[in-house]
């Protein structure tokens, strides 16, 4: 299940609710990853744009990959501003045994960073500045700029 929120995530509520919702489904492992905004380079926080239609289809493709392994995926992400020391991202895998969840959380989070249609901005001196240097072109990018 994919959850989007305006502003910072309520991490204890989300982790606890997911735990409760899956606790009777016979999973032996619950491995969450929580992304928190760090104080660095003088930022006051980060801000996010999310393109929900493609994010949803990307997430559903991962759900389909997880299902044959007996695993369930959960993800929560912020839209808009998230200040330093608040959290903007949670991903979690539930699986019958730990190995599947440990491997999947890494692959899922890495693909999320490379492919999920979310744009990050630094909040600095009252401005919202696109974090271009930290951003990754989605695989296949450049199609329209190709010289033929």
């Amino acid at each position, binding site marked *: 299940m994919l959850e989007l929120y305006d502003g910072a995530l309520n991490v204890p509520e989300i982790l606890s609710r997911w735990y409760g919702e899956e606790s009777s489904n016979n999973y032996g492992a619950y491995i969450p990853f929580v992304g928190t905004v760090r104080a660095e380079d003088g930022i006051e926080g980060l801000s996010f744009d999310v393109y929900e239609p493609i994010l949803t289809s990307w997430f559903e493709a991962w759900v389909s990959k997880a299902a044959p392994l007996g695993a369930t995926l959960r993800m929560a992400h912020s839209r808009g501003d998230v200040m330093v020391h608040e959290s903007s991202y949670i991903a979690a895998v539930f699986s019958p045994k730990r190995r599947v969840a440990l491997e999947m959380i890494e692959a899922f989070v890495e693909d999320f960073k490379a492919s999920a249609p979310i744009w990050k901005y630094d909040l600095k001196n009252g401005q919202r500045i696109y974090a271009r240097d930290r951003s990754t072109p*989605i695989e296949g990018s450049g199609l329209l700029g*190709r010289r033929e």
Partner: protein
Amino acid sequence: MVTIEFLGPIQKAPLTLEATSLRDVAEALKNDSEMAQWLESCAVAVNDALVASLDTPLENGDKVSLLPPVCGG
């Protein structure tokens, strides 16, 4: 007519233009000085599905989206 929308940090209002394939969209945007810095790094979706070929056909009412480099989390 197809609609071209620019996502995330590309500060540009949607465009509508006549196009029968993505090749027509590429030609139109290459002549747009605002877009020059973005074309090399954008992924392209047609009706919210990512595509990989300039020969992707377009029909009246289709939506083409340009997705600049991403950084979630």
